[in-house]
């Protein structure tokens, strides 16, 4: 048989192999002759276990040796619950400089501003625009100093700062912000006066005056329990078990009962470990990673070790609560990937690192 016979249709001398084949490592390629049944390692039991139809499995159970098998592993479901980033990522120095360069280039190449389209002659808005544009010293792309477009050494003009941006834009453009702020202030004061007089008052809706900074109180204190810390990074939940070594782990527990599958097991695990006060979403039914380890000799009677399959979940709202947890957990933390590396062991991190997002 030549190489093409595998892919050609039957009428052209190929095999009846479907066009799309799932690319699993363990799927055998099509062969010329059907495979012979592999011989049984051990002879079948004299009295095979009877199957109860009400309990499932319509096919007879084939015993390939003694039950339980030699390589018996405990199966556990682990939970990798993440809080995805809430903000865009922090730009490194090089990217900030690059975008600054592109902005300056745009300043020099774009058409001049058509002021008469937006501001009619003789209006207050036009006066305000002219006054504000002249107030601050800015780069002038058309003029005697158009050549001085480079970023000077030691300058911080290229660095991104939302608060500085807000103040600069309010000072140089017609925004209506000053009026809005003064009206809000006046409304609040009148509402307070009315309340003091004892009248029924409706407070004006709260608006945020200035844009919030990218770091919160949680960042300043480095409070690892809070979810609003490191808002541009992904945070993962780790819990602390009551032991000296290898205490910090993702929440996990052995699958309980006959019919519990991985996703159920993971949901139950999270509920038992971190409480019900979390709005979570488990992504799919397929695990995203595996951590297996052998028990020390003499630890378990039949089992060789444990295989922990991790399920992916996201937190949308709420917080973990370890009071009355059924897994003997002491503490919890929400950590980014690099912080997690220090806290869990090396071996665990090696098994787990590819499930996690660095950003």
């Amino acid at each position, binding site marked *: 048989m030549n190489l093409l016979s595998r892919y050609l249709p039957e009428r052209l001398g190929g095999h009846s192999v479907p066009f799309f084949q799932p690319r699993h490592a363990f799927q055998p390629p099509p062969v010329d002759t059907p495979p012979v049944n592999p011989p049984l390692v051990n002879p079948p039991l004299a009295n095979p276990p009877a199957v109860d139809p009400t309990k499932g499995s319509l096919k007879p159970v084939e015993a390939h040796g003694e039950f339980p098998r030699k390589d018996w592993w405990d199966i556990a479901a682990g939970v990798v619950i993440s809080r995805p980033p809430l903000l865009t990522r922090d730009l490194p120095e090089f990217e900030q400089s690059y975008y600054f360069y592109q902005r300056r280039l745009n300043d020099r190449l774009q058409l001049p501003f058509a002021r008469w389209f937006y501001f009619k002659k003789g209006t207050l808005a036009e006066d305000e625009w002219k006054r504000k544009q002249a107030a601050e010293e800015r780069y002038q792309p058309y003029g005697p100093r158009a050549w001085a477009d480079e970023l000077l050494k030691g300058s911080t003009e290229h660095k991104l700062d939302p608060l500085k941006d807000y103040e600069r834009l309010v000072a140089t453009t017609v925004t209506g*912000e000053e009026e809005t702020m003064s009206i809000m202030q006046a409304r609040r004061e009148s509402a307070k006066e009315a309340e003091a007089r004892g009248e029924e008052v409706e407070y004006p809706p709260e608006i945020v005056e200035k844009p919030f900074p990218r770091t919160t109180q949680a960042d300043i204190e480095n409070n690892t329990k809070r979810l609003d810390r490191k808002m541009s990074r992904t945070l993962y939940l780790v819990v602390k078990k009551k032991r000296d070594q290898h205490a910090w782990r993702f929440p996990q527990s052995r699958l309980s009962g006959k019919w519990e599958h991985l996703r159920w097991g993971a949901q139950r695990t999270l509920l038992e470990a971190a409480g019900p006060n979390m709005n979570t979403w488990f992504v799919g039914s397929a695990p995203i990673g595996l951590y297996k380890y052998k028990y020390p000799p003499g630890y378990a009677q039949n089992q060789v070790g444990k295989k922990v399959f991790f399920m992916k979940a996201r937190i949308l709202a709420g917080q973990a609560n370890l009071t009355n947890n059924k897994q003997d957990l002491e503490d919890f933390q929400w950590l980014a990937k690099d912080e997690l590396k220090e806290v869990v062991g090396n071996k665990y991190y090696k098994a787990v690192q590819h499930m996690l997002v660095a950003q």
Partner: protein
Amino acid sequence: MSSISLKPLFHVPTSPNTSKLLPRIATRNATLLRRPKRPHQFDQLIILTDGSSFKQMTTSPRGVFRTTKDTRNHPLWNESDAAVMGLEEDEAGKLKAFRNKYGHGFDIQDASEIKKELDSDAVGKDATAGSLMDILRYKAGEEDIKGGKKK
């Protein structure tokens, strides 16, 4: 503008035996292009209703723009936020006037909530005013809404 003929820069020999599976080379002869006219753009800071903000480039000279309605305060995107789901904006007071005239029977709210509202302040005020508003606060039944013929 005259049509541009796209001829390959060098001739690829095609014999009758070679199939049409050989790749074509993307070519364009050097021609004079007009300098593109880029519109004048400004930085603009958009501040959403929940206080979050982002910066964008725009032709509008307004430097700061505050949204009044966006995904952060719309019920379609905030199903789990009870405050957003139940919020009813009544800027001109028309809904309040309607309720004063026709009662709470046409509201989308639950019966328990309406009862709570009635018990709290409204009925008391109406009773003291001596109006017939309490009679007018009926709950519209199915036949009333459908507008069928009265038997």
